C-alpha cells in the first residue's frame, strides 16, 4: 500500500497501473504536507495511522496475519 497526498493521487494511480498493481491500496492525506509544523504532522499521523494499519493488515498475506497471534516461540 502507499500513502499519498491529495495532489499526487493521479500520479500514484498511474504509476500503480504501469507497474502492474492497479488495485494498490492507497491512503490519501491532505496536501500540502511537507511544510507543516511538526505538531500538525503528528496529528495527521494519529488520524491516519489506523487506516494505514488496517490497509496493511487487510491486504497482507493470510499467513503473515497470524504471525502476531503466535506469540514468542
Amino acid at each position, binding site marked *: 500500500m502507499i500513502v499519498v497526498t491529495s495532489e499526487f493521487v*493521479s*500520479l500514484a494511480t*498511474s504509476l500503480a497501473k*504501469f507497474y502492474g498493481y492497479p488495485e494498490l491500496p492507497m491512503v490519501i492525506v491532505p496536501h500540502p504536507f511537507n511544510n507543516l509544523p511538526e505538531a500538525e504532522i503528528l496529528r495527521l499521523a494519529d488520524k491516519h495511522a489506523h487506516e494505514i494499519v488496517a490497509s496493511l493488515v487487510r491486504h497482507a498475506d493470510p499467513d503473515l496475519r497470524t504471525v502476531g497471534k503466535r506469540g514468542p516461540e
Partner: protein
Amino acid sequence: MTEAEAVSVEAAGTFTVDDQLGAIFEVFDVAVERGWTDGLPILPPTRHAVEQHLASVAGGPEDVVAVLAPTQGEATLELLAVCSVMAGCRPEYFPVVVAAVEALADPTFELYGINTTTNPVSPMLILNGPIRSELDINCSYGVLGPGTRANATIGRAVSLAMINIAGRVPGVVSKTTHAWPGRYTLCIGEFEEANPWPPLHVERGWAAEDSCVTVMAPTGSTNIIDMTSHTIEGVLTTIAHSMTAIGNVNMFPFFGLGPMLLVMCPDHARFAAESGLSKEDVREFLFEATSRIPLDQWPAEYRETLEASGRAVSGFTPLAARPDQFEIVVAGGRGGYHDVFMPTFGDSWPVTKRLPSTRSPD
C-alpha cells in the same frame, strides 16, 4: 504525401486522408485530440516517411530500443520513427534520436524521477564528433535557441517520445510545477573547433573521431555575463558566484549532490586556455570558489539539516563534493562574453552513447 495515404501510430490505429494539403491540418487536429503532440504542429507520420527513417538504422520496426519510465513504455524503432517524423526530422537524423533514447533509459540518468518530479527538468542532448557537420548541427550563435532544423527537430523527437512512450503528460504523470521551454526541444553541438580543451565525448572515454550523444538533465538556464574582468580568475569568480543561489536544485540539501553543466562561450574558454588553465584547472577553481557558502545565508529551517548531514562544516556549505561534478562544454557564438549555467536534477548523471546505435545486435 500521396492521396489517401495511411497515417499510423501504434496506440491509436491507422486512419486515411484524401486531401493532400488539407491532410496536414487534419492530421495535426487528430494528433492534438489524441495527445500525440507538444502543442506545436507535427508532420504526418505516413508509412512512407516512417519507413525512410527506419531505413537509416539497423534492426526491425518491432525491435525495442529501450523501456522508458515511468510508464514502462517500450520504445520500438517504429514508435521512435513516428516521433522522429512528427518532430520534423530528416531520416538521417534518426540514428541520433535512437541513441539518445537509449541513453535516457540508462538507470544512472533517473528517467523515472525526471518524468514525474515537480521540478522543471528535461533531457538535453549534447552532440560531439563528425556527426555535427554531417547533420549541420548548430554549435555556435544561438545554440540553445531556435534557427537550426537538426537541433530543433532531434531534440523535439526525443521530447515527443517522452510524451507518447514514457507518458510525460503534465498534471497526470508529470507533476512538474512549471516545466520550462527546454521541454519542447533541447539539443546542442559542442563547438569543438573553438574548444581549446578535449571535447566532452573524449573526456568520457570515446575517440575524437567518434560521433556521440550525451544526455544531461538541466532544470533551466542562467545567463552569466562578464565583459569586465581582465583576468580569468575574475571571469571564473563571476561564474562561480552565479552558481550558488540557494534555491537551485544542486544546492538543495535533501537531494544530494549531482552534476552541474557549464556551457562556456568560446571567448571565455580561449581566455582560460591562454591563461594556462586546463579544463581540470577550471573545475578545481569552480570547486574551490563555490565551497564556502556561509551557513547563515540559508533559512533557519535548513541549517539544522545541513549540519546534521555533515554538509555544513565550520559555518560553511559547499556546492559540490568533487571538482568532477562540474561538466563543462564549449558552445555558443564567438565575440560574446556570456556563459550559461544549467543546474541539473541532482542525482541524474550524464550518459554518452556512440553513433550509430550501440545496441547489441539481436
